[in-house]
């Protein structure tokens, strides 16, 4: 934990409510990005991020500061996400409610879209993103967490093992299975995407 984070935690423990807001503002973007990557849905990501900060608020007085705040928040998020997924499975809900034909700008009102005047490339890019998201959705929650933390958040296998409370060997095998699973999923769309394998 860096000295600024330490000061914020100390201020929070002393009863300074503004310190928590500062902490949220410091971490909200990566937390929300991870939530989007784990859930694949704007509303679920919003709710998951809020759950994470609520749990952090409750647990911060006991936070020992042995890890970075971000790692700690990631740990809370992954555990919460796995819990939510179990709960939803038990209730018979599907995690991914968005359909590929859904108007993204309506479903995700705060996403800033990049301007692309060429309808052809825009459609191709849209399909590509859709297939990538679908490949992610095929993963079990723990596999998806391992993959996303390694691939999009650039955490080392050791750091992921520490965050998830798993052995490095387990993280490696989960990651390997995740990539294999996505490879199968993407191979199915290879022709549709018009992509050639790199050699």
């Amino acid at each position, binding site marked *: 934990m860096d000295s600024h984070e330490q000061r914020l935690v100390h201020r929070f*423990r002393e*009863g300074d*409510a503004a310190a928590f*807001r500062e902490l*949220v*503002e410091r971490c*909200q*973007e990566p937390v*929300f*990005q991870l939530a*989007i*990557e784990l859930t694949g849905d704007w509303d679920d990501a*919003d709710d998951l*991020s*809020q759950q994470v900060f*609520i749990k952090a*608020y*409750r*647990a911060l*007085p*006991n936070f020992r500061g042995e890890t970075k705040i971000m790692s700690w928040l990631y740990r809370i998020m992954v*555990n919460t996400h*796995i*819990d*939510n997924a*179990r*709960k939803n499975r*038990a209730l018979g809900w599907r995690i991914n409610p968005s359909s590929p034909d859904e108007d993204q700008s309506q479903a*995700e009102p*705060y*996403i*800033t879209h*990049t301007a692309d005047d060429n309808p052809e490339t825009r459609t191709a890019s849209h399909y*590509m*993103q859709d*297939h*990538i*998201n679908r*490949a*992610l959705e095929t993963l079990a929650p723990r596999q998806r967490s391992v993959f996303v933390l*390694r*691939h*999009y958040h650039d955490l*080392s*296998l050791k750091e992921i093992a520490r965050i998830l*409370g798993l052995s490095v060997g387990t993280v*490696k*095998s989960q*990651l*390997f299975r995740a*990539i*294999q699973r*996505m*490879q199968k999923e*993407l*191979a199915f769309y290879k022709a549709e*995407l018009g*992509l050639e*394998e*790199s050699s």
Partner: protein
Amino acid sequence: MSSCSRCQKMMAGALYQELAPHHQQAFDAHLATCPNCAEEYQQLLWTLNIMDQRQPPAIDPAYWEGFWNRLSDRLKPDRRKVFRPDWRRWFPPVTLPVRPAWVSVAAAVLLIATGVYIGRSIYLGQPNGPAAVTRAEVLDPAVIAEFNGMLSHYLGQSRSLLLGLENFDTGYDDPALLDFPRQQMMSWELLVQGQEIKRHAVASSDPRLQHLVNEIERVLLQLANSEGEDLEWTIRLVQEGVEQNAILVKINLTEQEQGEEVIEESKSLQGVKKSALWI
């Protein structure tokens, strides 16, 4: 293990350049001779290249203002709770609001029952309380046998209590189904037994056992001191403590070692009997 299965185990590390140099060398050497593994590696690399093309959403700054407002609303009930300094977490809070009489009576009965139960189970037959275990005593076979019994009971009880909580799914199972007062009572009992085992571990110079009992103690204290207001959170803390310290694995290892010691002892006793027969 075949070299292909070894290669598969190294695949994830190789894809992210996280292999130690000698492993990377072995991995490259295998790919050079195994077209199947080389093909699989290329396929997985291709997959990662595709996944690299994912565009993270660029979020409008206006979103964050609403985010904090909603979070702040959801935090309102928590803000009413007063934080207690760390050391006070170990003691039940003393509050003086008016409570229904039956709550006070039930609490008093529970407290007395706990005291009587612990007193009976630990001090019965020991009018002067538990004496410190001496180095000479730990070498006494009778003391060893008695201690082994106590340790086995302690580890078994701790395992079943912690395993039950470890397997409890806070997102799915209903905390109301847990017999929490009974588990708290059991925690107190184990905490008292743990003190006795630690005394023995110190006398017999067994730092590993001492360390394990300390770790179990820390987790049990979370449980024993819980005020029962936020069961889900208490369970989560216990689960984190158990997972972070690999307590269940350590209990299993200690039980296994203890079992091996008992077998060794009985073997040596049988050896004595056999040699007596030869005489």
